[in-house]
């Protein structure tokens, strides 16, 4: 057993876990943050994606101990109160989900894609081909991806506007 100290959605937490505990188990089983899903459990589907120190990672493929000292954001931590994150709003407006199982991971990966491309100064040039290529680590079995890609492109515009406003 070890004590893992990290910040989750802005809150400092210290959790006693077995050393073999995965980050996703710490989030779901110890902190009851069940929005992060386990899909394939083999690093391929992306349902478990969270942000660690600002980067999208697969929380089923990390030990909790590797996240010691890190700043983790889950799907529960991106809305501002009742106001959805622009990516969440875009998924709703564009019907970017059906069963919803992959959605938390999709949204966390999508936010990372938009941040990365805006940071590189190519925001606005985030095109459909890039979104499709970069969503390759997230698998959806319902939508056929079309509306997910539409939602990400829509949100990219909204996030650019909100970044500019900040």
């Amino acid at each position, binding site marked *: 057993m070890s004590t893992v100290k990290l910040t989750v959605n802005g809150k400092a937490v210290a959790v006693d876990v077995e050393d073999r505990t995965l980050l996703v188990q710490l989030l779901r089983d110890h902190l009851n943050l069940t929005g992060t899903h386990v899909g394939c459990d083999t690093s391929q589907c992306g349902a478990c994606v969270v942000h660690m120190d600002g980067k999208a990672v697969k929380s089923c493929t990390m030990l909790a101990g590797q996240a010691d000292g890190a700043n983790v954001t889950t799907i529960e931590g991106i809305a501002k109160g009742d106001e959805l994150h622009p990516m969440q709003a875009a998924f709703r407006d564009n019907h970017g989900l059906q069963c919803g199982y992959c959605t938390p991971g999709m949204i966390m*990966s999508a936010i990372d894609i938009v941040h990365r491309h805006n940071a590189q100064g190519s925001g606005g040039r985030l095109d459909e081909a890039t979104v499709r290529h970069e969503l390759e680590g997230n698998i959806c079995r319902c939508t056929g991806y079309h509306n997910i890609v539409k939602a990400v492109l829509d949100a990219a515009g909204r996030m650019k506007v909100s970044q500019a406003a900040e």
Partner: protein
Amino acid sequence: MYQTVYHRASSVDEAVSLFAKGSEAKFLAGGQTLLPVMKQRLASPSDLIDLGKIKELQGVELSGDVLTIKAGTTYFDIMQNADVKKAIPAIAYLTSVLGDPAVRYRGTIGGSIANNDPAADYPAALLALGAAVKTNKRSIAADDFFQGLFTTALEDGEIITAVSFPVPAKAGYEKMRHPASRFALTGVFVALTKSGEIRVAATGASQTGVMRVPAIEAALKANWSPSAIDSVSISASNLLADIHGTAEYRANLIKVMAQRAVAAAG
């Protein structure tokens, strides 16, 4: 996953001494292969020595005609690095089609080559470019480093610290990607060194892991162009065969990927 004891090392020396204390310790780099393997209970190390926070294992240096990538540098940092893009853009490209964005944030070049998966991308780059693998004990030529499926020249407790690539005159990489895992169904790296040597390496194809392809090297020596490979015949014996492709299919892929790699190298 079976029980294990997690240790975070802050230096290579500390990692070596932690490793020596464990009964069946393993080094943990990005964990993008080792952790899934442990979850499948195909590996059960007594101790995991995490190399992820060791500063001396991070970074890229370009010095003259040698590009050195420290072992703990993540795929994401490699593909974004200005020196990598300038000196050997084929490595930046190879890295950009490896795994997916989340895997690229965590996985490292040292972890990839230490594992030596027969379908991994980096072994092809190291072998074709004639790279040197630096460890805490010695320097190992890529020709000697890769020794078959999941087997390398590394000794117990030896840590890869960096990989040094001679900057080539031309280099290119292309692969047929498995649509789910993104591993190479077959990938080919071609390189023309500054001294005029041509080296071609294929991954994902052979039953014994990454390999040179002498027939294509000879054809390219006569004529550096994709069409020079048209008449090359690749034997299917000793090539991998599985539900994704027969040995004959992979033999053909070696040619086609080599042609595309030469075209990409220019």
